[in-house]
């Protein structure tokens, strides 16, 4: 049970406080309700590029990192398709330093042309390092554009191409900031060795005077129901063939979300899971095979992905996978198998909740979804899933017409 207090400033900033006096540290987590899904299709990768610019100096503070390091703090940030999250950990005594820094960059950035130029280069190197120079780095670029036709999940957070990042202009950076980086589009979580009254006073002092901004109303195109299986084949200079298949699943708040999450654990994700046991260990067709989903806010994808043992044909591997799925569909999982994945989930949540930082970001995320208190309901939601629900959800999910298949062939001369 994660306890917290919650209040909203008059400018609309939502503030959550989670006290844990067993640590000498404090965590300040600021979540902005904007991600890669909010980007213009001709300007992808912008939300992430923007995250880099948030460290390039704000209205009154030329350097973000230096004062924080002086206060003994560390920070980082990440952007996903759904959101952008910034976090600081520092000695609790120096909590106000974090308020000073975070509030100034919420008030306004310095918008430096030099910072934009340098970070465009840095992000291009990040793009190359993780997506161009790494074998299989572009699998998700292909799969997203195959599985989504209209929803902005069709591109990756890093962006569709280097050119989109290179073309970003300072005016666009300003427009983006004033549209999304406002108190009413943000959630502040303060956790660790802190107290509610102290946080309230600091929040009023530093964030209170910032103009509210306009609440962003998200109107994303809805992905139409897929009606026929889709297929794509590509060749790349990698050593092993890779098979990747996806199926459209529910959104994060959908009624079948928890059943879907548990069924991916039955199929993949541990040594005793079905696909690993059957296809890697028994039939020796895959070097590895995984089943997972990203838990995205809008309807996501259940994914099964594996590299093939050399000499095994794509068709044979796919057929064997299909047989496993058929077996899963024709006979509902046993109570014991369900109990196993529930136990795994219980354990994973306990280990995750050990870190104050992780508790803070979870609180922010559940508040974004609708209510931070939902964080404490997760275990009971998983516990209530039945084998009948798993069977029903699986049958709905793994329909042929809901399926996207990518054959990623190894070809040294590609």
């Amino acid at each position, binding site marked *: 049970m994660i306890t917290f207090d919650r209040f909203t400033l008059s400018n609309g900033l939502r503030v959550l406080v989670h006290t*844990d006096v067993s*640590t*000498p*540290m404090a965590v300040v987590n600021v979540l902005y309700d904007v991600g890669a899904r909010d980007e213009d299709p001709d300007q992808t990768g912008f939300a992430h590029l923007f995250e880099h610019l948030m460290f390039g100096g704000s209205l*009154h*503070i030329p350097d973000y*990192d*230096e*004062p924080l*390091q*002086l*206060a*003994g703090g*560390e920070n980082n940030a990440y952007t996903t398709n759904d959101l952008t999250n910034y976090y600081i*950990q*520092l*000695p609790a*005594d*120096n909590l*106000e*330093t974090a308020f000073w820094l975070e509030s100034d960059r919420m*008030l306004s950035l310095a918008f430096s042309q030099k910072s934009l130029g*340098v970070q*465009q*280069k*840095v*992000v*291009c*190197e*990040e793009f*190359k*390092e993780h997506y*161009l*120079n790494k074998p*299989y780095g572009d699998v998700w670029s292909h799969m997203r554009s195959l599985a989504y036709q209209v929803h902005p999940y069709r591109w990756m957070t890093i962006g569709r191409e280097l050119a989109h990042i290179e073309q970003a202009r300072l005016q666009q950076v300003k427009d983006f900031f004033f549209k999304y980086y406002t108190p009413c589009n943000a959630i502040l979580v303060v956790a660790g060795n802190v107290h509610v009254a102290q946080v309230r006073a600091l929040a009023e002092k530093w964030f209170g005077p910032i103009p509210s901004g306009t609440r962003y109303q998200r109107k994303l195109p809805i992905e139409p129901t897929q009606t026929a299986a889709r297929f794509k084949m590509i060749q790349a200079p*990698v*050593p*092993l063939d890779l098979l990747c298949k996806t199926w459209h699943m529910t959104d994060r708040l959908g009624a079948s979300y928890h059943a879907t999450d548990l069924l991916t654990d039955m199929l993949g994700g541990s*040594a*005793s*899971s079905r696909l690993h*046991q059957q296809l890697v*260990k028994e039939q020796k067709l895959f*070097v*590895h095979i995984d089943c997972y989903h990203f838990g995205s806010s809008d309807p996501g994808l259940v994914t099964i992905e594996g*590299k093939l*043992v*050399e000499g095994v044909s794509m068709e044979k591997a796919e057929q064997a996978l299909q047989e496993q799925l058929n077996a899963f569909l024709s006979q509902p999982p046993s109570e*014991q198998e369900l*109990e*196993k994945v529930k136990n*795994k*989930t219980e*354990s*994973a949540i*306990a280990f995750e*909740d*050990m*870190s*104050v930082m992780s508790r803070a970001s979870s609180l922010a995320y559940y508040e974004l979804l609708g209510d931070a208190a939902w964080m404490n309901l997760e275990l009971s939601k998983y516990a209530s899933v039945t084998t009948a629900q798993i069977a029903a959800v699986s049958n709905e999910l793994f329909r042929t017409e809901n399926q996207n298949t990518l054959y990623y062939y190894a070809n040294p001369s590609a």
Partner: protein
Amino acid sequence: MIDRKKMPPIVDAVHYQLELKPYTHHQLANGVDVYMIDAGAEEVLQIEWLYKAGNCYESQNLIAATTNYLLRAGTTTHTAYELDEKIDYVGAYVNRGCYNEQASITLHCLNKHTDVLLPLIREVLTESVFPSHELLLYQQNMKQRLSVNLRKSDYVAGRLIDAYLFGEEHPYGKYSSPSSFDALTRDALLAFYERYYKQGHFQLFVAGKIPGDIVEKLNRYFGDLPITIPDLPMHPCHPATQKKFNIQNDPAGVQGAIRLARPFPDRHHPDFLPALVLNTVFGGFFGSRLMSNIREEKGYTYGIHSYLLNLQQTSAWMISTEAGKEVCEATIKEVYAEMNRLCNEPISEEELNLVRNYMMGGLLGDLDGPFQLIARWKNLLLNNLPPAHFHRTIDTIRNVNAQQLQALAQRYLNPADFYELVVV
């Protein structure tokens, strides 16, 4: 109106009175040492069985790592699948790790499941059988994984730079190849298992919210195992004589993996602790000289880091980055320029003060939580360092001065002493 230009007052982290929470120590009936940290709010445990069974002890490449990896591959009474199923059923994680001197098996679980798990761990530590079919599958899959890794310039660079520093025959410098996987035999694994696990030596590191009866349980399942301390074989280093290497690995590569490295003494050397401070200034954090210049000023890379290798018998000072193919040369030039700057100019008080505070704040954060605490103790114990080493570290962070750091830079940060490797 608040003055947003003015930084709020801070407590300088250098003044913190940091204490490393002491462990409690027990001995099992067979003399096995148990080190425990009781902390945290969640009902979870981490138990590590740390054996003297690392790469240093093997006489054939990959035997130590493979023996360690295949501990879960079946026992006299359970197949690999049955073991996996039992471990997964209670949501536990049983990980293996093989390092240079040590090899370990680590359990993470909810406290309520120890009664099921401890007998299973005993079983893998005493009755593993290393079935031939599991070994064959392992060889096949590891060779294929290797073929994927060898396409990554950073992976290739990491192997090569270690080989230049220590020689391919030294445990710190040797690396795997398809033929070394092919050469593995079940008999060799069984012999290594017998000598270094069943008749070997281990220590126990326990952390989490510790149940009152844990020592009694550990004694019940592990207190009767035979213990013999194996001799640590000594391997001479054969560093490369050539200093500069350019490797073409991927004709279509758009980035180069850059590694610069030089040998450095082990943790017992008086230069080691001051070097941690100098390293932080140089390339040890986001505000470092390397990061500020090469990422934040020039945009040549997504990240650049320097660090001292965490090895027990010696160390090395390493600079590591991935940079655009066309700016690799410029990146290396800037790294050397930063070395020269540290040699030629004393670090300003302002910068040094920031680094002191940053390091102390980081240390405070690192001491947070049972797993972090036991890891720090383990590091001291494995390196034969006394508890006072922790306070010496803090003293050094607080008191080392700019002149000492400049002298240290002059001793160790000479471009001519560094191996230089670019893999595209």
